[in-house]
């Protein structure tokens, strides 16, 4: 049975997960793709400059990864705290 404490703990765990994922989200886009792009461009790999690659490819792959992890983790959290759908 889901107690109010359970629901509160579930919400806190949810917020922690969101905070972590949004830090990664901001780091790859605003960090690597924009503010650090010129610095990262010093590094070259597979024909790309790293900053350019992050802005036009890398950030998008990370975004897909973020959502995939979120879906998996949230479904697990729902069950752990017994607040999943029947």
């Amino acid at each position: 049975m889901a107690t109010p404490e359970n629901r509160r703990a579930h919400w806190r765990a949810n917020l922690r997960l969101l905070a972590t994922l949004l830090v990664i989200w901001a780091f790859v886009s605003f960090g690597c793709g924009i503010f650090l792009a010129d610095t990262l461009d010093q590094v070259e790999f597979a024909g790309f400059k790293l900053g350019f690659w992050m802005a036009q490819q890398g950030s998008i792959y990370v975004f897909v990864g973020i959502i995939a992890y979120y879906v998996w983790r949230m479904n697990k959290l729902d069950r752990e705290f017994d607040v999943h759908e029947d």
Partner: protein
Amino acid sequence: MSVQTWTYLIVGLTFALYLYIAYRSRAGSTKEFYVSGGGVKPIHNGMATAADWMSAASFISMAGIISFAGRDGGVYLMGWTGGYVLLALLLAPYLRKFGKFTVPDFVGDRYYSQVARIVAVLCAIVVSFTYVAGQMQGVGIVFSRFLEVPLTQGVLIGTGIVFFYAVLGGMKGITYTQVAQYCVLIFAFLVPAIFLAVMMTGTPIPQLGFGGTMTDGSGEYLLDKLDNLHVDLGFAAYTSGVKPAIDVAAITMALMVGTAGLPHVIVRFYTVPNVTGARISAFWALLFIAILYTTAPAVAAFARTNLINTVDQASYAEIPDWFKKWEITGLVAFEDKNGDGLIQYYNDANTDPQFQAKAREAGWAGNELTVNRDIMVLANPEIAQLPNWVVGLVAAGGLAAALSTAAGLLLVISTAFAHDLVKRCLKPDISEKGELLCARIGAAAAVTVAAYFGINPPGFVAQVVAFAFGLAAASFFPAILMGIFQKKMNREGAVAGMLIGIIFTASYIIYFKFVVPDKNSTEHWLFGISPEGIGTIGMILNFIVAQIVMRFTPEPPTEVQEIVENIRTPRQFTAASKTTDG
């Protein structure tokens, strides 16, 4: 077979497919009309969301814009996909749990206010019409160039098709046609990209070929080659940024939060059976979107290299056929300024004295070629001399992208009218049948207005797109976000925040785009942020004002705080088991 025959054949087949699907999935109830009965499988909903989301702008314009903007074009890639992350993490699951049909529904109920509801309805309608006008222009370009029918007829055929399945089928018809349209558009985008990747770099995967070496025997990396071509012609290197980082960041942010607040995309999450379904379908949707979004920058680089190689110093008398055809539409223009019969394409605004000396020495009298960015994707297969059927396929893909988005938007407009305005504000006792009729009339009226905009495209479409994103960013996004994550946020705070956000953003855009367009440059902008990025500041203002006003006004009623409790967990709980923080 000729390009035109192929185009007629492929476009005809895809249209027949959409109509058949629409006929098979007609809507019988308002719930089917608004949210397809709420029983769509997550993977199908993911595809439909992807098609809904990726508009004519994504398919036709985006690669072209990146092609001309180089690294700075990344704002669209990161902005639109990054905004999707916000939508999937912060909005979609909770709005699904809330379980009403529309965004104004959420805003109106959460903030227990008819004013907030009406502000939301108006924003939804303005944002959607702005968008529809853009889609119809895309339809017009494809029809007039590839099927060589007059623009008016092209737009009428396009709107006729949308009319048929949006008015009859509602969300149910739209969902399954969008699934088909996603398949058509992604296939149409990938095929020429793969052809180009193989031709130019010898690998079939565009995302890798983009960083590969040229097959022309030089062994040079494609991007290095492109940087060199750019520098030789006086442009900034393709892989380097030109705009100030602060403006790039503001534009990216405005696109992100704006895109997360677009009502036609949010409403797609109401069509899945439950919260878990909403999360999973968000994942599928971004995966399907990412296929196109990671291919687009590769196409941009291929197209740019091909274009420069084809036109630079080419003799106008021997120019290929595609060039002449696009010249008729006015989207490509050549003016032989120095009378040498050759095309000089370079950056004549470059102030570097060394480059200017070089241009003088070569006898160049200014840039002689203008190419509209919107044609890069459509012209690409012809520039690269791909088979005729590929050209026809790209036309069908562009139409699929435009029609799927247009249909989603028209549905938002008709729902806003029938459900949010008539049922929730004007005539609450309206019957189910009456509401459905209202929704159909709303959709029909919206289609008619959209057709009018398609035939008489207002010159300000490009300018108002900044509006659509700015408004969504400064109004919807903060209101919904605080509605979910801040239990004590009340009516006064949210309404004040939305009003300040909208007024600030709208005045800034109107001031620079319409009042003093000649002062629209970095030195006059606030913090160096362009009108395209100002929605970010509008959003921040919205948050701040809402927090301050909330402190001095009464708490929201207990029932509303319970609604907020309830949307935070996937399972339905009764009012007795509530928590206390937030």
